[in-house]
């Protein structure tokens, strides 16, 4: 297996920094927090990169660090609500029904774990397998949660209204 070089990692981090920031901002909705989260994730990645065995896994490995960094910040603010795996699977959480019904804002109101799956799938175009690596859930769990999340949003994969 191809081991990743330090240089490859730093190039990847610099090239994709704007994507990292957008994802962090979408959870934290605060400029300084999002900057801190990206910087911390970069720091952790540089410290731990020897642990990554496979260069192809780099993307999922780094996003996992970044997403965990954002979760930690949401928790610290008391803004991350706890849902059991069953609740996440079944969609037993509140419907996102803001006055402004833009899809993006509705996504912001889903449980953070579901936000991750949806953002990585639709905004960052990750494969289900990659999402499974980032979230540490198996691929079937990712599919289930994506499916129930879309139901909550009342929208299909293609972006059409699901229940009209």
């Amino acid at each position, binding site marked *: 297996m191809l081991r990743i070089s330090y240089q490859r990692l*730093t190039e990847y*981090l*610099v090239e994709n*920094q*704007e994507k990292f*920031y*957008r994802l962090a*901002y*979408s959870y934290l909705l605060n*400029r300084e927090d999002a*900057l801190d989260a*990206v*910087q911390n994730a*970069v*720091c*952790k990645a*540089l*410290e*731990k990169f020897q*642990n990554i*065995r496979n260069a192809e896994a780099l993307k999922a490995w780094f996003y*996992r*660090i970044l997403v*965990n*960094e954002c979760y*930690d910040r949401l928790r610290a603010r008391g803004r991350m609500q706890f849902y059991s795996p069953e609740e996440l699977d079944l969609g037993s959480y509140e419907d996102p029904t803001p006055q402004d019904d*833009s*899809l*993006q804002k509705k*996504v912001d109101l889903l449980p953070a774990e579901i936000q991750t799956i949806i*953002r990585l799938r*639709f*905004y960052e175009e990750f494969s289900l397998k990659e999402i499974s690596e980032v979230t*540490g859930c198996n691929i079937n769990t990712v599919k289930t949660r994506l499916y129930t999340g879309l139901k909550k949003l009342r*929208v299909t*994969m*293609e*972006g*059409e*209204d699901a229940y009209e």
Partner: protein
Amino acid sequence: MNKWKRAGEAYNSIDIPETLADRVRLEIERHERAGKFRRHYKNILEVCALSLVLLAAGLNLSPAFADAAGELPIVGGLFRVMTVRSWHESEEDATVQVDIPGIEQTPGATHDFSDQMNQEIEMRVQEKIEEGNQAIQEYKEAFLQTGGSQEEWDERENTVSVSYEIKYQNETRVSFVIETYVSIASAFQETFFYNLDLMENKTLTLRDLLGDNWIDLCNADIQRQIEAYPLESGESTPFFDASLGGFDTVDEQTSFYIGQDGNPVVVFPRGSIAIGAMGVVEFIIEP
């Protein structure tokens, strides 16, 4: 318009602060500075470790020491030091590798002293293994709480090990060192010294080896060796001066083992009288 497309456009229009690139670059530069330092430091340590290994190899060249890592024959029929218990197991969070030495007396010899020593060794080793396992558990909790994943943890190779080395043995005396090591931090590396006289049934002291004048003798020899330490031009001595708590005097607590020629070798822990990069510092004292 497709709702996902619209949402994606909104997502991609999140403003990127100008400072983002600086923050990422800063973090990379900071890491590189620290990394260079660490690499340099590591090389020095490796050189020191290598010279210690060479020294140890030198000590063990004589045929009598060829088996130093394992069992030695009973010399003169009085006793031998051998591995009394050995195990190697992979637990969930660490690999434990232990060789505990013990003294075996010939039948008929007095066992009290050697039994007492064996018990002490056993207790000390068990205590160190427990401390090591506990330190690894605490480190694991901190690792997971600070964003490390279980997978990343599982990829780490944590070790708790206990090993020993026989430094000297004749008909009545034996000198060996036990080393305990936990891979997560150098602070958990400890060395214990056993210098025993199995005829007299006692632990040997520097006084026993060097006579009543042992303190002056050691101090003069150590000072001479510190001053004679070879330096490259422009290099300053790695030994601390008095203001930094450098070498002052030996005392009853000073560690030592007996070298191959029977002379004491005084040992100072890493960072106690010289910069940490020197590693453990040893002085052979010639009476």
